[in-house]
């Protein structure tokens, strides 16, 4: 492999990395407006973020809405996924299309729809309204992840349980659910993130009453007034880094004893290795921008 393409690749990696990391020093800056490198460092804006109600309230709203979205999405998507994956029936293709369609919509189009429709229902500026809109947007991701997991499920396990006398409900609770737990967990996590990150629809429908964190950030960047935005950015980036790095570190830590084990002559404990979970495998393909 020649040097030039390699060098180009490294440059692009730097292009991706630099903007991500620049927000970190900015958050400790004393400058009241955008200035890099920072003239001095302090923690004042962190204190401001955690004490200012104009920032804590949107954060709380976002958490409530994201948890609500996650719960509602899983409640609706779980039975639907079983239906689509396990049954052949008339209209299956249509159901499949409908469940993935919200993914292909530019969010600004839906934002107008929700603005007027949820407005008529008096649900704009309420948590419930935003939860409803976010659930519709989270359905495709949750469905795709869950159905991919369900397709790989060995139904003989259920047959074994049933043949041993378990009722369908008991089988689901004691066999199906535990086996699919990672799938459920990732599906729910994606629904949560989808809602917590969603900006465009929230800008139009969350209003002052149930303002979400992305809406507050958007307004704050638009006004260019509030240096607290760099603190929020750093915290969000740190959260992402933590969630992505945690499985990697965990894997590395857990792999080591296994390798020693193999070297010692005992068979490598393959089962002990955590399931390979690629955080980006079911890509967050959404026109959410």
């Amino acid at each position, binding site marked *: 492999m020649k040097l030039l*393409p*390699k060098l*180009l*690749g*490294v*440059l*692009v*990696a730097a292009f*991706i*990395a630099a903007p991500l990391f*620049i*927000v970190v020093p*900015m958050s400790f800056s004393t400058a009241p*407006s*955008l*200035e*890099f490198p920072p003239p001095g460092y302090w923690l004042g804006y962190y204190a401001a973020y955690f004490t200012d109600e104009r920032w804590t309230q949107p954060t709380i709203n976002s958490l409530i809405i994201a948890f609500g979205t996650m719960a509602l999405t899983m*409640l*609706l*998507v779980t039975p639907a996924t079983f*239906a*689509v994956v*396990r*049954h052949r*029936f008339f*209209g*299956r293709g249509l*159901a499949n299309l*409908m469940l993935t*369609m919200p993914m292909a*919509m530019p969010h*600004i189009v*839906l934002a*107008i*729809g929700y603005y*007027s429709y949820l407005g008529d229902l008096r649900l704009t500026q309420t948590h419930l309204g935003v939860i*409803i*809109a976010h659930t*519709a947007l989270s*359905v495709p991701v949750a469905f*795709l992840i869950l159905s991919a997991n369900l397709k790989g499920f060995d139904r003989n396990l259920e047959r074994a349980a049933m043949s041993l006398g378990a009722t369908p409900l008991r089988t689901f609770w004691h066999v199906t659910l535990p086996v699919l737990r990672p799938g459920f967990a990732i599906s729910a996590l994606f629904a949560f993130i989808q809602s917590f990150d969603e900006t*465009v629809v929230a800008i*139009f429908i969350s209003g002052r009453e149930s303002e979400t964190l992305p809406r507050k*950030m*958007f307004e704050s*960047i638009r006004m260019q007034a509030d240096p607290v935005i*760099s603190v929020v*950015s750093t915290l*969000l*980036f740190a959260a992402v880094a933590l969630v*992505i790095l945690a499985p990697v570190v965990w894997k590395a830590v857990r792999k080591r004893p296994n390798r020693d084990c193999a070297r010692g002559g005992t068979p490598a404990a393959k089962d002990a290795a955590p399931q390979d979970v690629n*955080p*980006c495998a*079911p*890509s*967050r*393909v*959404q*026109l959410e*921008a």
Partner: protein
Amino acid sequence: MLSVLNRGAAAPGALKPWLLLLPLVLFLCAFFLVPLGQVALMSVTEPEFGLGNYAHLTSDSLYLQVFINTFLTALGVALCCLLLGYPLAYLMAQSSPRVAALLMLLVTMSFWTSFLVRTYAWMVLLGNNGPITAALAFLGWNPPPHLLFTRLSSTLAMVHILIPYMVMSLYSVMKRIDPALLRAAESLGARPWSVFRQVYLPLSAPGMVNGATLVFMICLGFYVTPVLLGSPQEQMVAGLIGTQIEEFLDFGQASAMAMVLLASTMIVLTVYHRRFGLDRLWG
């Protein structure tokens, strides 16, 4: 009546999937299809019934300009993502698993970081007191150019935000390319450049098409970054739709534009689907 019951008893399996689907289907009808239908309806009924809003779209050159601008921007962003993403994906595909995993980690991290955070980061980078302006001034560009709120700043940020989609599409295709094919071409006497151009490039083309389609489609409806970083004189469609709602409460005109945007997105999807099949795009 009896026959319905009988049929129900004879084939309970046919009913069960629909019972399981019912809650979600009802929910999506009420809170996805109806709001979407309302946008379509508003586009022909606000302020009065008829195609006036669409006629206005075609007669006013401002709207045409915005649509052309959006289209060209999306095309440019997709092209930049391809040109920049290709070397990185290539590097990942050619490196040791450890280096590839490290680079993938970086791409994933960027992918999951909120659009707003990345948009804000570009505001810092390109601001009047930012490092890039300072570097340009240091290099003798005096007075340094105003970089923020131009087409350049919004394009750069959009490329940065969307490049993970491109790299992931490319990498997933590239890592499946059999190195034996490249060795075969070499052993038959091909120069490194012809091996790349005649063997590697065509084999990686599906990834290029996937990535470019995704980036183009997302970019068509991009709201956040162009509004925050773009030039107010050169809005994109989504931004103009937002302005029309927020400032003029002109739902009819906004809805008509939204319908055109939706149709454009659907056309891109359909063309892609016809040629390659949608399953591949969602990967």
